[in-house]
C-alpha cells in the first residue's frame, strides 16, 4: 500500500491553515493566559482543617482590598489564591487574616514573583527560542542542505503557531515550564523531520525515473512506520504525565502533547511538501517533472 502525501499537499496546507487561523484569531481576541511568573504577583496554596467556601475566602481578602484576586478551590479544604504583587508584610497579613476568619490552615505553597523577574524570564525565553532556531538552521544546512533546513524551520514555526493557538483557545496558563515544553517540541519536531530528510537525501542519489515529489513520497512511505513509532514512544510518557503527573506537571504535559502531535504531523505533511516545492524549482528536478510528472500517479 502506498499513500499519496505529496500529491495531496494542498489539502494538508488547508488543514494547517485552518487550525493556525483559528489559533491566531483566538490569540487576537482572547490573548494568552500568562502565569504568575510573567506578570508578577503572589500565589497561595492553603489547606484547611475544616471545609471552606470560596465566598468566605473572598470576603476575608476583601478586608485587605484584595477582593478581586483570583480564587480557586482545589477541593473542599484547599484553595489557590493569586493576588497582585505584595511585599513580605502584606503576604503575612493575608495569611493571618484568612486564618483568623476561616480557621487553622497549612501553607502548602507560597510563591512570590516580582514583575521585573517575569520580564527577565520572558526575555531569556525569547532569546533561547530565537537562538535555537538559528542553531538548528545552521546545523541542518551544514549536515544536509539549506532548502531542507528552511523546510524544517517552516515546519517548526507551524508547530509553534499550532501550540500557541491551542493554548490561547484552551485558556491554559503560560508558565516558564510551558516555555520549556515549547522548546522541547522544537527538538522533537525536528527529530521526526530529520528521520525523513535523511532518507530523502539517501534516495535522491538514485532518483531514477521519478520526479522529486515521487521520490519524497516513496521516502515518506518507507519511513512511515518508524515515524509513527518514534512519535508514539515519545507521546506515551507524555500521556503518562498527563494522567498521573499532578497539577504542575499536567500543564507542562499538555503543551508537550499538542506539540508532539503537531510535530509528527508537520514532518510529513508540512516539511516534506514544502521541500518538494522548493526543490522542484531547480532545473534538474523541473526537467524530471516535465518528463515523468504525468505517469505513475
Amino acid at each position: 500500500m502506498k499513500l499519496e502525501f505529496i500529491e495531496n499537499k494542498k489539502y494538508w496546507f488547508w488543514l494547517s491553515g485552518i487550525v493556525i487561523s483559528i489559533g491566531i484569531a483566538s490569540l487576537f481576541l482572547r490573548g494568552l493566559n500568562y502565569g504568575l511568573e510573567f506578570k508578577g504577583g503572589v500565589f497561595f496554596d492553603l489547606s484547611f482543617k475544616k471545609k471552606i467556601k470560596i465566598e468566605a475566602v473572598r470576603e476575608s481578602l476583601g478586608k485587605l482590598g484584595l477582593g478581586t484576586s483570583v480564587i480557586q478551590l482545589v477541593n473542599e479544604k484547599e484553595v489557590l489564591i493569586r493576588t497582585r504583587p505584595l511585599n513580605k508584610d502584606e503576604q503575612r497579613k493575608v495569611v493571618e487574616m484568612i486564618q483568623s476568619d476561616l480557621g487553622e490552615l497549612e501553607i502548602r505553597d507560597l510563591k512570590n514573583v516580582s514583575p521585573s523577574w517575569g520580564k527577565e524570564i520572558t526575555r531569556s525565553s525569547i532569546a533561547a527560542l530565537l537562538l535555537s532556531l538559528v542553531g538548528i538552521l545552521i546545523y541542518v544546512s551544514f549536515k544536509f542542505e539549506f532548502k531542507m533546513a528552511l523546510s524544517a524551520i517552516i515546519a517548526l514555526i507551524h508547530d509553534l503557531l499550532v501550540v500557541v493557538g491551542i493554548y490561547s483557545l484552551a485558556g491554559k496558563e503560560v508558565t516558564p515550564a510551558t516555555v520549556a515544553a515549547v522548546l522541547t517540541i522544537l527538538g522533537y519536531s525536528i527529530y521526526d523531520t530529520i528521520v525523513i530528510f535523511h532518507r530523502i537525501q539517501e534516495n535522491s542519489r538514485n532518483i531514477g525515473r521519478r520526479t522529486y515529489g515521487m521520490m519524497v513520497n516513496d521516502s515518506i512511505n518507507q519511513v512511515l512506520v518508524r515515524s509513527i513509532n518514534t512519535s508514539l514512544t515519545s507521546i506515551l510518557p507524555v500521556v503518562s504525565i498527563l494522567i498521573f503527573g499532578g497539577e504542575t506537571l499536567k500543564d507542562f504535559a499538555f503543551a508537550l502533547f499538542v506539540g508532539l502531535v503537531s510535530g509528527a504531523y508537520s514532518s510529513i505533511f508540512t516539511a516534506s511538501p514544502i521541500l518538494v516545492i522548493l526543490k522542484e524549482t531547480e532545473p534538474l528536478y523541473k526537467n524530471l517533472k516535465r518528463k515523468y510528472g504525468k505517469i505513475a500517479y
Partner: protein
Amino acid sequence: MSQRQKYLLSVFFVLALVVASVYLIYPPAKSTRLGLDLKGGLHIVLTARPLPKAPVTEETMERAKVVIEERINKLGVSEPEISRQGSNSILVQLPGVKDPREALDIIGKTALLEFRPVTTSTAEGLVLGETLMTGEYVKDAAVDFDDFGKPKVDIEFTPEGAKKFDQITAEMVGKRLAIVLDYNPKGRTDEEKGIISAPVVNERISGGRAEITGDFTIDFAKKLALVLQTGSLPVKLDISESRTVGPTLGSDSLRAALIAGIAGLVAVVLYMIFFYRLLGLITAGALAVFSTLFWGTIVATNKFTPLGWTLTLPGIAGIILSIGVAADSSVVIFERVKEEIRAGKSFKQAADKGFTFGFKTMVIADVVTLIAALILIWQGVGPVRGFAISLSVGIGIDLFTTFFFTHPLLSLLSSSEALNKSLLLGVRKGVA
C-alpha cells in the same frame, strides 16, 4: 580480539557500570537530593539592583554570595544551597525550613550599610544626600553598651576604610552624617528610610574606629553586628521570587511524578515488545540500563563533583521525556534492521547494516535536540534550566547506551541461529 569478544566485553562493561550505579544509588532515599518543590522548604531568588556606589559586577556578586552563605550558616539551616543564577541573581534554597519568616528577614536584609550626609531636615524626617561610603570597608563589628547601659555597635574599618572615613569626617565637621541600613528613599519616616542614627560629626575621626548609637534594642544591635561581621552586601539585592513549599505538597508532587515516570516506562516497554517482539525485549533491557545509569549519574555528580544535582519537578519531567528519546533511538535502528531483513538479508547482516545507518540518523537527530537543550541551559532561568540539564544528560546517556549496549547485544543475538526466526522479530521476510 574477535568482534564477538569485543561486543561481549562492551556489554559486560556496561553491566558493570549498572552494578556500580545501583551500589551508588542504594539506599535511594538518602543518595538522591530532592529539590524544594519535592520536599518542602524555602526558595528565594535575589536579584541585584545596580547603584552608583554599588555596581553589579562579577566580583561583587561573588562576594554577595559568600556573605549570604555566611549568614545562612549562622541561621543553622541544614543543607542550604546557595548558587549564582545568571549574571545578576543569587538562588537560595533552604529545605525543610519551618518558619520562613525569620530566614527571609535575615537574608532579605541586604544590610547595605551606607554613610550619607543629611542635607535638610523636614517635618517628614531627614533628607539625605548621595552615599559617601558603604559597609564594605567594615572589618569587624561588636555589640557593646554605653555609659547609660544602652546598646551600641562598635565598628572597626579596614585600613583603606579608615583612610576614607577620616577624609569624610574631616569634611563634615559640624554637619550631620546619617548611618543608613538598606536605604529606602520612599520611606515616610526616618525608620522606614532605614536611618539608624544621624549624629553630628564633632571632630575628624582618624583611628579607623567608630560607634553606632541610636534608639534601638539589644536585639537590633545584635542583628546589626551580625550582618556587619559577615560583611554587609556589596550590592543591593531585591527579592525577585520567593517560594515556600509545604511538606505535604512536596510529597504529593513526588509521588505523582514517580507514578508518571513508572507508568511512562511501562507503557513504552509494552508497546515496544508488542511491536518488535525480541527486539522490543532488547529495548526493555536498554531502557532499564538507561534509567539506572541516569540515576547513577545524578548521584555520582553529587558525590564526586562540587556540582550539586538536585532533582526538581521539571527535572523529573526532563527525565521522563528522555525515556521517550531513548525508545526513539531503538525504533530508528530496529526499523532499519527490519527493512534490511525484508530486503532479504540475514538477521546478522541486517543487524550490522541497520545499526550503521540507524545510528547515523539518531546522532543527527539527537544533536539537534541537544542544540535546543544547551541553548536553554545557557539562556534559561530557574525551572527551565533544570529541565534542560536533565534532557541533555539524558541524550548523552542514550547515545552511550545505544552504542555500548544495544548494538553489541543486538549483534550477539543476531549471530545466534535459534533466534534467527523471523517471527521473533515481528517481521516477515521478503515482504515489503
